[in-house]
């Protein structure tokens, strides 16, 4: 064999349309996990303003909460956290060998439940805008 061809990752990403439920669950779980890690850094940055005194901390929080985009991002954050938790529970059952045949259904159930909780949270998060 003199030479061979490596099709590489670019062609891998091109296959997203063929992903099945388990694969989408994996993609979403990774994505939501990274978003939550990113949020933790932001969260710590906001909390650290308390070091400079209660006034700065209060002003920072009030300033952020006054922005519509922050309120919408909080809704998104809730969606991300809820899906990650539900899929985490799903994976726990998979690890225990429970409901392996229904792994796709449990993924869809996680999505539906996430959607329902997110929609229900909208009035609370966007109140007073």
């Amino acid at each position, binding site marked *: 064999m003199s030479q061979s*061809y490596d099709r590489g990752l670019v062609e891998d990403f091109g296959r997203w349309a063929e992903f099945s439920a388990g694969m989408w669950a994996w993609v979403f779980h990774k994505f939501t996990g990274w978003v939550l890690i990113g949020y933790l850094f932001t969260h710590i940055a906001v909390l650290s303003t308390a070091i400079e005194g209660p006034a700065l901390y209060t002003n920072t929080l009030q300033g952020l909460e006054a922005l519509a985009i922050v309120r919408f991002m909080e809704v998104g954050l809730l969606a991300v956290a809820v899906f990650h938790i539900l899929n985490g529970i799903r994976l726990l059952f998979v690890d225990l060998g429970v409901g392996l045949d229904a792994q796709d259904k449990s993924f869809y159930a996680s999505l539906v439940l996430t959607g329902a909780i997110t929609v229900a949270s909208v009035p609370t998060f966007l109140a007073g805008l």
Partner: protein
Amino acid sequence: MSTHVPESESESETGAPEQTEEQIPAAQQRRLAKKQERSDQREQRAESESETDEQTVHLKVFRYDPEVESKSRPRFDDFHIPFKKGMTVLDALIYSRDHYDSSLTFRHSCRQAICGSDALFINGAQRLGCQTQVSDLDDPVRIEPLPHQEVVKDLVVDMEHFYEQMDAVDPYFRDEDVPSGLEEQNQTRENREKIKMSTRCIWCGACTSSCNIAAGGNYLGPAAINKAYRFAMDDRESDALQQERFETIEQENGVWRCQTQFSCTNVCPKDIPLTEHIQELKREAVKSNLKFW
């Protein structure tokens, strides 16, 4: 008159060798000519039927050949072939090779989903060419080599890494497990049922190809872990050897790299519950390491 025998007939009855030798080839030639004529008629009939029915299959086949300059850049070739009831993707490829392009390269052998040599990426999924009916696929049928393995030529991929991973789990009973003399090596029915599905693996590599985690890394992959499961769960293997197997599959590149995508289980042409087996091995690995009792 009645006793008169023509000269030629009498000679033939006597079996003159010079005439028999001439007559036999002539008769054979006539038979061959008729056979050829019938064969031509059949082909013409088949062609006219396929033309009138207009049932053709459109194949888009991945092509690559590093030794031919015009094919050294991968591309897709189109083949339009007459459809026949019961035609598999492998049949379609063979037809394309025999009638249009003899350089089209792909692996195949048993044609009955046992040898595992014709695993291909067909319409976005890893499938066996001989097991996949063309009628079950959307047109055009897109045929590519297995992903995550380097392409050697056209639809042929380099399986060396896959075989190395399979060999890494010692996929066989070792000598010390075999009883001496004529003693039978018994296995319970329950144990046979437990490992039954895992014994069906045909080493086609479809599962490992579908696994993103196995791509490009040293992860053993679902096929090798399933093979380890087949022996680790077998009652006939001694405890010491079973422990050795667990040491192999518990390593960094063993069962813990599985991220439960279920891709392997979805594509397995033999319906082996690969993810289930991997998860069970994970649990067994935990049990063997955590000794609270």
